[in-house]
């Protein structure tokens, strides 16, 4: 089934299709799975339980529910349980049950969930943010992972008894065009935007959820290298058109409609390697968008064979300028040893945004050997590049955006304090949509959880409204956290935090 695209077909806005207009408001968006995961498992021995209701009375989280008109309880809502905290606060149902009919234990699954970088706590706390739009409280370690380096060892030095600023008066907006080059001064309301995930690697539902959330928050999302699907057109003011080495779906109209065009020179998921879409995920719709044959594996070359110098890169920038004089240009590069030279070169070639993608991040399928070994983590690249931009006297004309391993609002704030203007996120969005980081995005039909898949059946596992709301909620929580950090430092604008390395300490370094 080939998709024929009629260029004159009017693109109807999504609300005509029965979808809501995305709004910047928090609404509960509970897990789309029947059994929500948490840290604990709660057992109720039905033989002992006398249905007295004491547990429901005492539980602060609503784990024990007896629906109205029923004598018995439904299965405990385990994911809400905070047993350790309850033990301290005297609200522990197990201690208070007159029949000793309750028991809790740490879920064995909790121990198998997550990894060094994304611990179970980080996954669960991201889910909490996506569900409620609030910051996780209680037992979850939501600030750092367990990787033993980088952001996980960096902490803020908050002033004791400092003057806090009023959270309502704090601005989190950043400008994206800091050059006086006559192009629009685009401002985004959060110092974060969504990374590129191509049509083909993720489902249209995922792409649209990202685009709609970006629209609600006045930030951006990115098409990735797989082309610009028509349904994104209503959100075109918040979409970045990516031009990657495969040049899939790069057409005059997709460049003309974009406010930002991003050149993907390299990506943190697989620095030095090209994109790779396995044949199984290359469905007829994907193939039509990419101008390829369905079912074949699509390898993007690496590098751009038209760019072997900064001058060649300038030629690229000029090409975009010619097609769309109003578009900002972003150069997405990875982090080799000379990343500082690459960044400065990109600026002099005319880029408005320099986007560094560090080696430990990425969402796409990549050889394990590349993910682990090639290029440096973003934590090293940020101070290195920021310092060089200052030395070259161009720091205030470049927007330095970083990505690759930004997991939490804390990572975002630390990256900004290390010297970035803002960040790009990918994995947190995936996790908010229900990813558990099993890493099997590439095999067969793709993601078992219906996020990174193009299979017609699997795509149905997720709903656009739900996905949009999860992302809007998560961004709301991220903003809350950022505002809290700024407030504790007595700042009123996120731009004040940039490059304030004096506010950071590293646990492996001697205290000054």
């Amino acid at each position, binding site marked *: 089934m080939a998709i024929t695209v009629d260029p004159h077909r009017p693109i109807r806005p999504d609300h005509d299709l029965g979808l809501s207009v995305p709004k910047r408001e928090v609404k509960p968006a509970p897990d789309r799975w029947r*059994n929500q*995961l948490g840290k604990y498992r709660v057992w109720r021995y039905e033989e002992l339980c006398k249905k007295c209701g004491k547990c429901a009375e005492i539980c602060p989280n609503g784990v024990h529910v007896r629906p109205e008109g029923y004598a018995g309880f439904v*299965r405990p809502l385990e994911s809400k349980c905070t047993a350790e905290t309850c033990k301290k606060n005297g609200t522990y149902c197990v201690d208070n049950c007159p029949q000793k009919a309750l028991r809790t234990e740490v*879920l*064995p*699954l909790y*121990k*198998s969930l997550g990894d060094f*970088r994304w611990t179970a706590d980080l996954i669960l706390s991201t889910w909490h943010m996506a569900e409620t739009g609030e910051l996780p409280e209680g037992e979850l370690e939501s600030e750092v992972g367990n*990787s*033993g380096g980088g952001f*996980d060892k960096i902490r803020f030095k908050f002033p004791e008894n400092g003057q806090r600023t009023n959270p309502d008066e704090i601005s989190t907006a950043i400008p994206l065009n800091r050059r006086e080059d006559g192009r629009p001064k685009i401002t985004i309301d959060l110092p974060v935007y969504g990374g590129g995930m191509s049509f083909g690697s993720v489902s249209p539902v995922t792409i649209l959820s990202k685009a709609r959330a970006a629209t609600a928050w006045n930030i951006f999302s990115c098409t990735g290298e797989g082309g610009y699907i028509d349904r994104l057109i209503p959100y075109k003011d918040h979409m970045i058109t990516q031009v990657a080495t495969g040049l899939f779906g790069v057409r005059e109209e997709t460049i003309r409609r974009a406010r930002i065009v991003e050149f993907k020179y390299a990506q943190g*998921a697989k620095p*030095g*390697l090209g994109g790779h879409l396995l044949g199984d995920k290359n469905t007829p719709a994907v193939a039509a968008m990419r101008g390829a044959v369905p079912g074949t594996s699509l390898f993007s*070359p*690496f590098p751009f*064979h038209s*760019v072997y*110098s900064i001058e060649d890169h300038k030629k690229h920038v000029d090409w975009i300028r010619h097609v769309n004089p109003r578009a900002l240009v972003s150069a997405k*590069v990875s982090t*080799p*040893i*000379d990343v500082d*030279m*690459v960044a400065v*070169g990109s600026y002099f070639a005319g880029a408005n945004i320099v986007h560094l993608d560090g080696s*430990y*991040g990425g*969402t796409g*399928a*990549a*050889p*394990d*050997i590349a*993910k682990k070994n090639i*290029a440096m*983590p973003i*934590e*090293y*690249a940020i101070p*290195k590049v920021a*310092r060089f931009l200052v030395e070259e006297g161009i720091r205030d004309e470049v927007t330095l955006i970083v990505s690759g391993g930004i997991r939490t609002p804390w990572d975002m704030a630390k990256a900004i304090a290390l010297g970035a203007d803002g960040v790009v996120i990918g*994995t947190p969005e995936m996790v908010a949509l229900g990813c*558990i*980081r*099993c*890493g*099997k*995005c*590439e095999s*067969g039909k793709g*993601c*078992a*959880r219906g996020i990174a898949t193009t299979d017609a059946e699997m795509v149905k596992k997720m709903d656009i409204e739900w996905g949009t709301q999860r992302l809007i909620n998560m961004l709301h929580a991220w903003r809350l956290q950022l505002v809290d950090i700024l407030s504790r430092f007595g700042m009123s604008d996120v731009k004040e935090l940039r490059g304030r390395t004096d506010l*950071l*300490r590293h646990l*492996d*370094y*001697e205290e000054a």
Partner: protein
Amino acid sequence: MPAKYHIHPKPTPPKHKRIGKYAIIDWREDCSACHNCVKRECIYSVYNDERDRLQKTVQDYVDYLYECKGCLCCVQSCTKGLLTQQVNPEYLEMGDDVWTADIISSTWYQAETAKVPVSGAGYPGPFRGPGFDSILTDMSEIVRPTRDGIHGREYISTQVDIGRKPMKLEFNPDGSLKTDFPAQVEIPLPVLFNMMPWHAPSVNVSKAIVDTAKALGTLAITNEPKLMSSESVIPHIPEQAKDDPAITARMAQWSDCKDVVARIKAVKEKNPDLVAIVRLPLGSASIPRALELAKQGIDAFHVYADWQGVVGNNGKPQHISIAVREIHQAFVAAGCRDEITLIASGGISLAEHVIKTLLCGADLICADVPLMVALECRICKNCTKGILCPIGLADVDHDYAVQRMVNLMSAWHSQMLEMMGAMGIREARRLRGEVGRAMFFDDLERECFGPVFGQRKAVEA
């Protein structure tokens, strides 16, 4: 241009039960046997086998311990919440700190499929680790182009040479070559096969290793007398050997001993095309000896760490990567690095370790334990204790063993191309000592974090 190097892989499933990472636990007591059981929905069809077998006997549940990919769909969808997931305890028990369960599992995958292990969702591991994990490799973009080699558009050569290299060529007045060109062996992969570190494998396994070497065009070091006639063998001559056998091979390896130079000379008189390797332990103590032997005309050195990559170094343990850098730099300082060949072995368990060892200064490496793991060895080390091998490795099927090892090397070759391509290097020979294309975590900390955070705390040993 020489013909492209090709390895011929073929999927070769394992012969023994695999040990997977995730286990789904099934509390069956409350199961209502509903018709829309989540087990039917598994996109990896993990439960299909169970369904078929359940019709015959109720008790016959399957081991999902390898096939489960941990997507949690069944766990989160079961009507009554009867399923949960755990990390397989047997998986956790495999290997040790250096040979982790993940490395063993990845090696099995490569030996089975010959594919490069691929996964999504970013790097899940620790920020940095000891040994090889404290080194990153570089990539190039815009100003330093990469090589697009893995998919065949540009050819990346992994060929290396073993033997002495003349520093200049001299010609006779009539234009003919005057320099006596020393013996050299070219192999298409910077990997030789080593003897096993724990004990001699059975003749069967040794023969499979030698035949794998033949299939790949490389060579295998062995001391198995029955295999000496093969052309893919590097005979190993131990220190206590009374007379050196008449060596017909292209290369031979001697353990270092007092009269090793004289012994090699004697053999070389009979067989002038022989490339002679002297085997030395790594560590600062061996460096003067190696330099002395190089002066006396030894062509190549096989420097080794223990099987976990640790060098004793007089009570100050060193990782092989550091020890190789030391000996490489000592040869550079002595001005004879280009003349000799340095072969390193010990603790090299992944393709990335090959590249990193070469970047640290070796010309090529010797693989040992990975070959055993390709044959489904679990590094339980029962064999060293005289206990029965759980997989009966000694009696392994010959064709299966060769194909598994060929597959592993094919996957290693592809991964080496990926790394070299990203670095923009298209010759394995140019990797040697190219630390400019490596990034050491300690340097990165100092250069990037030093100006920000100040003095780093002393690292505990």
